[in-house]
C-alpha cells in the first residue's frame, strides 16, 4: 500500500514543483515516485485492469507535467494532482464504456489465470468491483481511499476538501449500498 501523506512534506513538495516549473526532470521523477502508487490505487479500483491502470497513471502524470504552470503555490498539491487523476479516470471510464459495456468484465489472459488458480477469490473480487462501480462517485472515492489506500477519515477529508462528518456519512452510505447489492452473495435474505 502507498505511504500516507505526511504533513511536513508540503513545503518539500512546493520546492519540487518550483524546480519542475524551471525544467528540472529529476524533481519531476521524485514527484511521480511520491504519488504514482496513490494514483494507481484509484485507477485499479476503478478499472480492475493492470495495464489500463498503468496507462492511466502515465496519462495523469503527463497531464500534471503539462499543467504544472497552472498550479498555484500554497494550494494543496496532492489534492490538485488527485483532482486531475479523478477527472481523467472519469474520462477513461467513459471511453471504455463506449467501447464495451461496463458491466462486461474483460477476460484477458491474466484474469483467466487468476480465475483458474483461485476461483472463489476471483469471483468475490469481480462481485465487489461490480458493486463498487454501481455506487455514486463520491461514495466510491471515499470507500477506495479508506479501504484500499488505508486513509483515516480525517486524511480523506483533507484530501477531498470536505468535512470529516461528510466523509463518515459517505462511507456509511457506500457500505450500505454495497451490502444491499452483495446481499445475495452474502447468503441473502433478512
Amino acid at each position: 500500500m502507498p505511504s500516507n501523506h505526511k504533513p511536513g512534506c508540503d513545503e518539500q513538495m512546493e520546492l519540487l514543483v518550483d524546480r519542475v516549473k524551471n525544467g528540472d526532470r529529476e524533481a519531476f521523477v521524485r514527484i511521480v515516485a511520491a504519488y504514482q502508487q496513490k494514483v494507481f490505487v484509484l485507477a485499479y479500483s476503478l478499472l480492475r485492469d493492470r495495464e489500463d491502470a498503468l496507462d492511466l497513471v502515465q496519462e495523469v502524470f503527463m497531464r500534471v507535467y503539462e499543467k504544472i504552470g497552472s498550479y498555484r503555490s500554497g494550494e494543496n498539491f496532492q489534492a490538485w494532482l488527485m483532482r486531475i487523476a479523478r477527472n481523467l479516470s472519469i474520462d477513461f471510464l467513459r471511453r471504455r464504456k463506449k467501447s464495451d459495456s461496463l458491466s462486461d468484465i474483460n477476460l484477458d489472459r491474466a484474469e483467466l489465470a487468476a480465475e483458474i488458480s483461485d476461483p472463489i477469490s476471483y469471483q468475490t473480487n469481480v462481485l465487489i468491483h461490480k458493486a463498487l462501480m454501481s455506487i455514486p462517485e463520491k461514495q466510491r472515492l471515499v470507500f477506495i481511499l479508506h479501504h484500499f489506500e488505508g486513509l483515516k477519515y480525517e486524511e480523506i477529508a483533507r484530501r477531498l476538501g470536505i468535512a470529516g462528518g461528510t466523509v463518515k456519512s459517505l462511507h456509511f452510505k457506500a457500505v450500505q449500498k454495497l451490502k444491499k447489492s452483495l446481499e445475495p452473495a452474502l447468503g441473502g435474505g433478512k
Partner: protein
Amino acid sequence: MKACRKYKKEWVAYLSRELPEKKAEEISRHLQECPLCRREMEKTAQVLGLAGNFGEELERVMDTVDWESLAETIASRAVEKNKKEVQAPAFPAGWQWRWQPLLAGMFLGLILGGLLTLGLINQRKPHLAARQEPSVSVPEDLLERVEVALARKSTIEYLERSEYLLLELLKDGQNRLAEPEKQAVIRQMLTEKKYLNVLLDDWRLMKAKNICDQIELLFLELNQLSPELSAAELEKLRKMVEENQLLLKINLVKKELQQSEV
C-alpha cells in the same frame, strides 16, 4: 429499538475504528445485549471483509510493478512530449491574437469581392451566364454539411482562444487581464461570439452553443474589469471558472467537435 436506530449509523465507523473510545465502548455494550444488531453488524463486517479481499488483490498487482523505472519512464515521456511542443509551436507568440482575425477578415473579403465581381460580370454578359448556368448544381444536403463543418471549425478556434484566456485568468496573479491590450482581446472575443451565434443555430451544435454562451457571460464580466479590481473579485471570477469546470467542458466539447464527422 430506538437505541438500535441510534447506533445503526455508527456501525461502519465502529468497524473501521474511526469512533472515539467512549462511543466505541457504548456500541460494544449494546451489541452484547442486542442479537438483531449483532447480526446486522456481522453482515456489514462481511462486506468490509470482501473489500479486504479486493485490497489484497490490489496489493498483489502492485507488487508486480517496477515503480522505480515507471517513474523514470513517465518523467522521460512527459519531458520529451513537452520539449516537442515547445520546439514546434503552432504559431509564434502574439501571432494568434494580432494577425489571425485580420487575415481571416482579408480572406473573407477577397472571397466576397470575387463573388460580387463574378456576379457583376455575369449580369453584363447574360449569354455567358446562361451558358454556365446548367453546369453547376450542388445538392442541398452537401451545402448544409459544409455549413455545419465551417461552424464546427470556427467554434473550435473560438474555444481554443477562450481556453488560453481562461488559463491566463487562472494563472494571473496581478490582474493583467485588466490591461488595455487584454481588454481589446476580450472585446474582440465578444464580437466574434455575435458572429458565431448565427453559425451555432443548429441542433447539432447545441452543446457547443451552450458552453460558448457560458464563456460569453464570463467575458462580459471580464470586460468590466478595472485595474483597481480587488483580489476578492478576481478570485470570484476564478472560482466561477473552476466551479463550472469551464476548461474541462471546453476540452470535452472541442474533442467532440473534432471527432464529429461532417
